[in-house]
């Protein structure tokens, strides 16, 4: 019961130096995180950076006397939503790093211009507004922040609350409808599978990935004797994602280098003969 | 509540159009006869109008008035003055001839139904469609001559374009090899051009109409005119001028005034001869008529302000149209440019602001309608025989088809307004009327009669005289149907040329009214002025 009161005090119109320190440090970190979110080439990294930013925001909520929101932020956002993101990222391909090269002409410049103008305007707007006196949440949070929120939610905003509930259900159903795939044919029995396997082209297990080609990794296709990569050697999922790293070019390059060297040596020999 | 004669005159062809369109595809001939019957019936109604109209009486007679769109004070107001009734007579008179002349123009056997079929979903039936559209045009034109409510008039003015568009674009000149792609594209080009030009004019007019409502608070011609006369409605000079220009522009496009004329040659060149007549002899008259009725009556001051410029433009049209007519290689385009020259005369007469000029202009509308119909329809018969519109493809027709040549010559002589034929009366009135106010314009315009002689006679010489061309050899002379179409027109030309009094008696009072609207008086003869 003591911590809330202190924080209440902290949530006064003028902040304590502690909060100021916290704001400057964490604020910087949050901004950096945001920037990383949009600059990282890999979705995973972006997601992680975003998660960090969100946690910082959660702390800021707390600092602003929104205890419930702070917790919810951590639990729902960082805990649930970001994880959902990560799942999808995995599904789509963790290693898929999309190039930051812009394809649409002038897009980046326009974006920069708009963003800049927007930011400037917002800042200007905030600057214009006379926001000197902060009432602080002392009175509002007098008998607990959660209770206050609850009072509002279940009285004033009850309809909105109900509607959001409906929205959530709808979205859940929607998501299911969107992603659900109807199984049209009967699931195969083990017997049928084995028979298929016997009839199929590959009786033995699939060839191993290109561990023989100086690359000890599963996403590299093994080379056939003629130097062409064999799709079969790479895992189906990776194939599906198109994440096969092709080595044939490197191999050919190596071959070239080898021949080059031998040529030189021979050339030297001839000179020696003369 | 007496019998609504004006409504009936417009409603009959409208219903007839629907009925004609509804005739089953197989009963093609029935549709033709039905259309002809309806048009004749309309002619009868128009004749009744002429009889029941008392020249000495009120300005607008046989009036009808019903509330239509209450919120904007739009009323269904009809009424005819001398000018309107004369033009209604002209329209109702010409349509039967147009229908008879176009008797075979839409027979599906040879017509390229290709472009047509794309118009309407389901079974598009060229013949029925053709005659139904003609009747629809007649209905709208007649009603627009009767409308005394600006908004009502505007709607008709615009709606007219739709059937005309299909008539031009849908039913090409049979002279062209059927299914000829180039011809089809040219035709649709012409149709689109016609539509665009007139739509632009219409849009500007719409703005002006709304502006007028804002200023005057009413669409009723009578109310506004009365308010202007009594001075209770005062327009700022600039407002009035802008509104005037808005109206005038639309009318100048419709009645092609240089330099807004270029749609006419394409339209008349590509359309079949009867449709070409419909364009120039009937539909375009709405433009000149509206100048007289709306521009002068609603915006007298602005009209007077704009007069000098308009007269100059009109003179340019006269000379320019005539010169281009001389330079044409295509019979129908030649007639089209001749019409441009004649419309120049009409507009010049209207804005000369003399009773001679305006009566002449009104007579000119009627006479030009008849004479152009005569010339163009005969030209159409000629073209349908040889299958070409090029003047150079003809020669020596007079030898093989003397009657055709003779009627063609008379039509031509009417076009060059030979004394004794109707156009001379109107043209001379316009010239005198203009001369008495703008001598220079009058003199320059008189050059037009020489040029007219030039293009008509050159056309006649190249097509009709000289050694008989091989393709022309054995060309049949006018058939009975064709003769029945042309002969009455020629008779009318001669009658109105010798005894135009019946017409002038109807027109003069209306013109007197218009003159008083613009508060203008005929200039006195110098000698009397001296006395």
């Amino acid at each position: 019961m003591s911590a809330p009161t202190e924080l209440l005090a902290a949530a006064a119109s003028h902040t304590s130096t502690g909060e100021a320190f916290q704001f400057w440090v964490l604020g910087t970190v949050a901004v950096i995180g945001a920037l990383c979110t949009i600059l990282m080439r890999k979705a995973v990294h972006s997601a992680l950076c975003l998660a960090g930013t969100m946690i910082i925001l959660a702390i800021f909520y707390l600092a602003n006397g929104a205890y419930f929101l702070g917790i919810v932020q951590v639990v729902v956002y960082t805990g649930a939503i970001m994880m959902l993101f990560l799942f999808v990222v995995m599904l789509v391909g963790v290693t898929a790093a999309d190039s930051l090269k812009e394809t649409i002409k002038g897009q980046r410049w326009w974006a920069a211009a708009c963003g800049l103008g927007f930011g400037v305007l917002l800042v200007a707007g905030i600057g214009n507004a006379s926001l000197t006196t902060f009432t602080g949440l002392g009175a509002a949070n007098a008998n607990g922040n959660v209770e206050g929120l609850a009072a509002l939610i279940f009285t004033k905003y009850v309809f909105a609350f109900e509607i959001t509930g409906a929205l959530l259900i709808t979205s859940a159903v929607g998501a299911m409808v969107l992603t659900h795939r109807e199984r049209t044919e009967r699931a195969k029995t083990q017997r049928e599978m084995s028979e298929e396997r016997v009839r199929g082209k590959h009786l033995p297990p699939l060839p191993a990935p290109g561990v023989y080609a100086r690359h000890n990794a599963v996403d590299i296709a093994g080379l056939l004797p003629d130097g062409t990569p064999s799709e079969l050697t790479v895992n189906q999922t990776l194939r599906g994602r198109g994440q096969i790293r092709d080595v044939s070019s490197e191999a050919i390059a190596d071959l070239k280098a080898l021949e080059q060297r031998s040529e030189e040596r021979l050339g030297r020999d001839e000179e020696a003969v003369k | 509540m007496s019998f609504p004669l004006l409504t009936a005159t417009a409603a009959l062809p409208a219903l007839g159009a629907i009925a004609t369109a509804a005739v089953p595809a197989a009963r093609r001939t029935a549709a033709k006869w039905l259309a002809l019957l309806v048009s004749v019936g309309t002619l009868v109604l128009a004749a009744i109008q002429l009889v029941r109209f008392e020249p000495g009486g009120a300005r607008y007679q046989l009036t009808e008035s019903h509330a239509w769109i209450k919120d904007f004070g739009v009323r269904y107001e009809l009424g005819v003055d001398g000018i309107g009734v004369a033009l209604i007579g002209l329209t109702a008179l010409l349509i039967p001839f147009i229908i008879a002349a176009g008797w075979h123009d839409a027979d599906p056997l040879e017509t390229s139904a290709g472009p047509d079929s794309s118009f309407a979903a389901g079974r598009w039936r060229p013949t029925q469609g053709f005659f139904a559209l003609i009747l629809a045009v007649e209905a709208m034109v007649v009603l627009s001559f009767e409308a005394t409510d600006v908004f009502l008039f505007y709607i008709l003015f615009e709606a007219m374009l739709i059937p005309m568009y299909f008539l031009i674009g849908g039913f090409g000149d049979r002279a062209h090899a059927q299914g000829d792609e180039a011809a089809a594209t040219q035709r649709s080009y012409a149709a689109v051009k016609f539509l665009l030009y007139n739509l632009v004019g219409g849009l500007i007019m719409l703005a002006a109409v709304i502006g007028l409502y804002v200023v005057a608070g009413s669409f009723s011609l009578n109310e506004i005119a009365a308010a202007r006369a009594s001075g209770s409605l005062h327009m700022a000079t600039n407002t009035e001028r802008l509104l005037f220009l808005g109206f005038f522009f639309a009318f100048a496009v419709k009645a092609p005034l240089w330099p807004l004329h270029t749609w006419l040659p394409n339209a008349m060149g590509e359309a079949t001869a009867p449709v070409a007549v419909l364009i120039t002899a009937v539909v375009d008259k709405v433009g000149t008529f509206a100048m007289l009725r709306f521009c002068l009556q609603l915006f007298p001051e602005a009209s007077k302000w704009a007069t000098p410029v308009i007269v100059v433009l009109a003179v340019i049209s006269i000379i320019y149209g005539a010169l281009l007519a001389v330079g044409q290689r295509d019979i129908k385009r030649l007639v089209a440019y001749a019409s441009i020259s004649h419309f120049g005369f009409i507009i010049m007469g209207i804005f000369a602001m003399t009773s001679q000029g305006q009566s002449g202009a009104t007579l000119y509308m009627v006479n030009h309608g008849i004479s152009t119909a005569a010339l163009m329809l005969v030209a159409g018969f000629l073209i349908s025989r040889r299958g070409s519109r090029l003047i150079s493809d003809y020669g020596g027709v007079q030898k093989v088809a003397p009657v055709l040549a003779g009627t063609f010559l008379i039509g031509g002589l009417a076009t060059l307004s030979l004394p004794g034929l109707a156009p001379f009366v109107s043209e001379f009135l316009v010239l005198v009327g203009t001369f008495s106010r703008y001598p220079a314009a009058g003199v320059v315009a008189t050059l037009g009669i020489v040029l007219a002689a030039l293009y008509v006679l050159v056309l006649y010489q190249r097509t009709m005289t000289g050694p008989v061309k091989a393709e022309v050899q054995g060309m049949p002379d006018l058939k009975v149907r064709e003769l029945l179409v042309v002969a009455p027109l020629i008779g009318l030309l001669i009658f109105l040329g010798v005894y135009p009094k019946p017409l002038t008696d109807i027109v003069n009072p209306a013109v007197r009214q218009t003159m008083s609207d613009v508060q203008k008086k005929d200039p006195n003869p110098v000698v009397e002025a001296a006395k």
Partner: protein
Amino acid sequence: MDNLIALLIAAPLLGAAVLLCGGRKLDKAGHWLGTLLAGASFVIGAVLFVDMLGRSADHRTVTKHLFSWIPVEGFQADVGFQLDQLSMTFVLLITGVGTLIHIYSIGYMEHDENRRRFFGYLNLFLAAMLLLVLADNYLLLYVGWEGVGLASYLLIGFWQHKPSAATAAKKAFLVNRVGDMGLSIAIMVMFTTFGSFAFSTVLGETGGASSGRNTAIGLMLLLAACGKSAQVPLQSWLGDAMEGPTPVSALIHAATMVTAGVYLITRSGAIFNAVPDVQTVVVIVGTVTLLFGAIVGCAKDDIKKALAGSTMSQIGYMVLATGLGPIGYVFAIMHLVTHGFFKAGLFLGAGSVMHGMNDEVDMRRYGGLRKYMPVTFVTFGLGYLAIIGFPGLSGFFSKDKIIEAAFAKGGTEGWILGAVTLLGAAITAYYMTRVMVMTFFGEERWKHAKTPAPDQPGVEPAAQTHGAHDEPHPHESPKSMTIPMIVLAFGSVFAGGIFGIGDRFVKWLEPVTSFDHGNSPVAEWTVTAATIVCLLIGVGLAVAQYGRKPVPAVAPRGSLLTRAARRDLLQDDFNHVVLVRGGEHLTRSLVYLDHSLVDGVVNGTAASVGGLSGRLRKLQNGFARSYAVSMFGGAVVIIAATLLMRAV
């Protein structure tokens, strides 16, 4: 009685209507009907003439108001007739000569399958010409004026299958139209000046109008007269008009229509008297044309063209006379009438010669015809004597009077005019003698003459029916052709005497045209003597040149003047280069401009709009992100706007 006036016109008009509308079934009787109606109107004219003689000189004018034609406020055009001595003179001339020529045509056009149409046109012409001279106001006169133009167009181009004929007809109509333009402008000025264009008003109130307006009216009327009467500078059509059948040339382009200009000027005498400057112009025009026509007449080998030239110059005489004012009007009309007789006779003679010579018109292929066609020879000869003004014959009286009047103008111009007219008389004698000699005397050059060269103008289609490909065998023409010639010959012999002796004609016309003797600086007999001397000189020269030595079958190159004269003194070349070429270029460039400029502006706008929208279409590239950018930009703009609003 005055109802007959309307009937006068109605008769030939009816004929025209019937003959032109009635179908081929009328071919049998058509020409008779036409002739009959023409004759009928002559009879009516004669009746009216007698009736008029019955009244005293001051009460001879009859007016007949038929109906109100175009009534528009101040502009009151009526259809009304006015028959006074002047009109009566013309009526008799027109119907008389007209009837004769109808009769002549029966024979002349025998082999033409369109004879009915021909007579229809002739009747139409008679009606229009009568309307012209009977109208009591200028607008109605204008109707007749253009009516005769139309008739002449139809008749010149009667053989339409000949391009030359069609072209000539068109040319005639166009040149006339230029003149008509003058007339219509004149009428407009009259209306704005007097508020009317009735003869009574206009000619009565001339004094009230400013001289400027009178001058305008006068000049415009003169322009009209030039067009119709083939005066310089609008004379170029007359020569080509000879493409028409010869009777047409005789009736329209010699006797009646071409003299309409003289009628117009005489009729409007009051106006011209009011403005002497215009009269001077008239005189100049007349004089120039007089010499022009004469010179052209000397050079032509085509007999009809030669006669056309002479017509031109004779009308020059008349116009000159009218330009002299009250001194000259009467004599102008008198010469007009006599000229009507002998020139018509000459043309008919020429026609008869051509008829006998397989429609050969080149005089160099004639010669010695007098013993083959005696009647033609005699009548032609009488006409010839009349036109050169052989003492005692009609030409002598009329032309002599004009020459006297020219001297009577007084002052230096009097002398100049007198000299010119005398010179003209000499030249007239010269070229007429030339025609006479080349045609009827000398060796018979038509023997062993091959058929006319294809490029020969004016080869009439009757040639085919005659079988033009064998050597011509001249023969006398049928009665229907010779009788009119004989009658006209009588006219050309005695008319002058009847009119001239005792100034009958002067007295007859004076009430209408007014008359004064002027003050001639020279005695009458001296002028007469001088005339006769000039005449003899002219004849002598011609005989010396063409009678003594044989005429070459092919025209010698000749002097520059001769060659120019053969080409109508280069008038046509001038017209062609300046008007035709120029006009063609103008129209062609205008057609191009209309397409590229006037139309181009509009199409250009359309194209540019299309291009713009095409470029805008590229913004819709389908990338959600670029849409997002635009949306974001929009948001920025809105925020900026709101902030600005607040700031303001």
